[in-house]
């Protein structure tokens, strides 16, 4: 009988608040070390935490999206352990009374089936700082910029049965928290980090001993780490060994995992309610306001895009995969009122360019305004589709507006009827033989023969003639209609 994999996830979602969970210091990514750590974050004597209301609003939004019960009373506790990047010597977190209770998400699997993954709970907590072990000549450096950053830790039930399911869940969670705009979703910056609890068993057996692989920050690493660990566990059991409950680390570079600590070495965290923070009481009004401020979730957005913009199911689902793309799309549409071309360009050329450069849409070199400017000029016939590609590339590399580039590069199509008529007359006058042949030909052969005249006209205008207009003029002159 085959082995069954059992997976539960703990996901740290960094909340996109402006300031920290208990202090006014900024949480913006990438600042110089220790420039975003105030006296509270440094745990200076006598300093006290003040809860950030926004973090509660975000956690409540998450709870509503997760179909979960909202903890109207939640309690912060102190989790005690010593570590140099943990300035207070305890992490302020929630344990017995979290802000988000049991809930669930339905995920879509590749075979089109939907599966319900239950959420055990989600709680608010503060992040630790960072220990830097390189470049300090045998010493360690501490960066406390991240210390106190608000997180929600989402804990699932062990409901996933394969790496694919776990990744599908992780991707959906990513989609939802970015759609809610409660997390920037920048995985490479650690905005979402996954701890994966894995065990294997024969179907029908009780749960096997699990291991926890910590701190995976990409879907790819998560998938690799799960596959590796499942293989390892099966191999161990089949060679007669027992699985030891332990914490493991996966290295995405070497594609290897190692044991970090076994359960026996784990700390006694001596949790107790934080006496500096009273229990947090949320009233219905606060919860209702959070609900009212919730942005549209991806499913609802997709349906709306199909109805409102006439997008295909396929285009709509790609564009609503993440909130930033959807927002980008809507900005473009609002500016140019061209929903279909906008979708085509975003899914096509823009996505290709972003992929090539390994950038997210937030880092796009072309703004919605710039793209809308380009789409308008394609639509009104100012430029040809070939010209449009040139403009797009120039927008990406040099910036500016579509109009500036069209002007500078002389990409404007000649669609001025009188100019084109003069050119057509000249071509007709200079090529009597071809004109006679054309007029003598049957109607079904004429379109093909028109190509010669179009070619001549294009040559005369150096390719700038608007082909649509040109075709019309030539046809009417040649057929005399």
């Amino acid at each position, binding site marked *: 009988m085959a082995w069954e994999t059992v997976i539960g996830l703990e996901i740290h979602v960094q909340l996109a608040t402006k300031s920290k969970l208990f202090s006014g210091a900024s949480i913006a990514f990438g600042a110089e070390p220790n420039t975003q750590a105030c006296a509270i974050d440094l745990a200076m004597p*006598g300093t*006290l935490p003040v809860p950030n209301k926004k973090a509660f609003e975000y956690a409540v939004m998450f709870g509503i999206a997760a179909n979960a019960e909202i903890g109207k009373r939640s309690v912060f506790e102190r989790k*005690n352990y010593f570590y140099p990047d943990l300035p207070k010597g305890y992490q302020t977190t929630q344990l017995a009374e979290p802000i988000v209770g049991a809930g669930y998400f339905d995920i879509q699997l590749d075979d089109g089936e939907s599966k319900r993954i239950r959420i055990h709970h989600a709680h608010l907590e503060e992040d630790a700082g960072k220990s830097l072990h390189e470049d300090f000549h045998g010493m360690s450096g501490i960066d406390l910029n991240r210390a106190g950053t608000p997180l929600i830790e989402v804990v699932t039930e062990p409901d996933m049965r394969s790496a694919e399911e776990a990744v599908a869940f992780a991707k959906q969670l990513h989609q939802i928290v970015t759609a809610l705009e409660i997390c920037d979703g920048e995985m490479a910056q650690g905005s979402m980090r996954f701890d994966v609890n894995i065990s294997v068993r024969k179907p029908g057996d009780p749960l096997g001993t699990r291991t926890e692989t910590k701190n995976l920050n990409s879907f790819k690493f998560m998938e690799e780490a799960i596959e590796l660990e499942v293989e390892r566990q099966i191999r161990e059991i089949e060679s007669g060994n027992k699985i030891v409950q332990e914490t493991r680390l996966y290295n995405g570079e070497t594609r290897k995992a190692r044991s970090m600590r076994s359960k026996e070495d784990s700390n006694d965290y*001596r949790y107790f309610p934080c006496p500096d923070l009273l229990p947090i009481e949320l009233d219905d009004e606060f919860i209702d306001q959070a609900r009212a401020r919730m942005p549209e979730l991806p499913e609802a957005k997709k349906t709306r895009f199909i109805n409102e913009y006439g997008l295909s199911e396929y285009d709509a689902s790609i564009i609503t995969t993440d909130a930033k793309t959807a927002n980008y799309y809507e900005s473009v549409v609002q500016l140019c009122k061209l929903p279909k071309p906008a979708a085509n360009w975003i899914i096509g050329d823009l996505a290709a360019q972003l992929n090539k450069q390994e950038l997210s849409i937030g880092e796009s070199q072309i703004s919605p305004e710039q793209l809308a400017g380009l789409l308008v000029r394609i639509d009104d016939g100012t430029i040809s589709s070939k010209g449009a590609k040139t403009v797009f590339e120039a927008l990406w590399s040099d910036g500016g507006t579509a109009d500036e580039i069209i002007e500078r590069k002389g990409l404007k199509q000649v669609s001025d009827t009188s100019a084109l008529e003069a050119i057509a007359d000249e071509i007709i006058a200079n090529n009597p033989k071809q004109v006679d042949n054309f007029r003598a030909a049957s109607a079904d052969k004429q379109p093909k023969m028109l190509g010669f005249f179009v070619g001549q006209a294009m040559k005369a205008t150096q390719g700038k003639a608007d082909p649509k207009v040109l075709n019309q003029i030539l046809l009417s002159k040649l057929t005399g209609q």
Partner: protein
Amino acid sequence: MYNNSISIWAEKLRKREVSSAELTQFFLKRIEKLDPQYNSFITTCNEQALAQANAADALLAKGDAPALCGIPIAHKDIFCTRGVLTTCGSKMLANFVPPYNATSVENFARAGTVTLGKTNMDEFAMGSSNETSFFGPVKNPWDKECVAGGSSGGSAAAVAACLTPGATATDTGGSIRQPASLCGITGIKPTYGRVSRWGMIAFASSLDQGGVMARNAQDAALLLSTMASFDAKDSTSIERPVEDYSHTLNTSLEGLTIGVPDEYFGEGLNPETATTVQAAIAEIEKLGAKTKAIQLPHTKLAVPAYYVIAPAECSANLSRFDGVRYGYRAELKEGEGVEALYVRSRSEAFGDEVKRRIMVGAYALSAGYYDAYYAQAQKARRLIQQDFVEAFKEVDLIMGPTAPNPAFKIGAKGNDPVAMYLEDIFTIATNLAGLPGMSIPCGFVDNKPCGLQIIGNYFAEGRMLNAAHQFQCATDFHSFEPADIA
């Protein structure tokens, strides 16, 4: 004139009979001359004090200065003072100069007071005798062989010896009231949440409360009206307007009901203290108040519950003192790592009592013991609070002894932590309940001061100060002073 009250000094300042600079210099000189015998100050702020005094004088000259403008006071060394050494009585912070003011310090600074210096205290406020201070014990001005009480022993002794007209202090289990009682002064700990804890170095966060010490209730009212505030920086601060406690001092005590708990006159109380306190309560009756015997049946749970909860909270609160970012850092030997940094820094810089409480607290919170100790203690705490809620349905104030004994000899209880803990037997329950409590001088036992404790309902500070002031108008215990301070 060294023993003038704050209200007298304030009037002289307003009338420009004396300048704040002169007054400040006067007290700085007294500290310099007299304090070597009491050891009540850890730091004096001569230069800063004179600058503050000059600024106050400028404000006074303009004519619309706040009530306390130009008055010199002292801050317990648990309050962070910007640019001024703040040690909390510990070797751990013997070099710590905070870049910020405690909210209380800021409130006094805005009122134009002058900071004379920082007063001695038990290390991290853990102690009842001021003997656990890294800077040596404070000596009681009434008997220099005796303790001044603790943990606010420095503030109490400094006020008793008239080295300052008033001082800030803190009270986690009696640390304002017990030293006030032992030093013969007036001290009040308001309702939990009335005074901001921001910048007040934490011992046990759910119990710590700042308050004031002065030579009489009138002065305490002036100081507390300035110190108290709602503070958004302290989540446990209570959003409620601050009363001017001076306004209600002269209300009659006619019709007031005073509860006298049976449990506060039982075992462990010095018989002479009992008689003295009973006489004081009889005096209050003469002023029109009625007395009523009450029961606080869970009183006996207070000391054990406190010695679980306070150490549990302190075990976490003191984790930040790890030698990494500020304070004492052990010199590491070649090959020693971060573990040694923690162990050695904390072992070398914390005193025995602090270590004892961290160990007790960590034990009480550890897996398998939490329910037996911490959870039980929280239950006891609720029962104690309920006792008071019931009592205050029938009485306006509760009165009894502050401390079971007058000041004892330095070193007498050094090897017996439990005997020391019992010094706070009557004061601890109010902290567990979050209620306001105060101590006023009410007589002498063995020629040493004895205090009357007044406990009020939540936010009844005005009523307590009123009763204390009326008592002081009718008696003169508060105006006695130690022999050699003139």
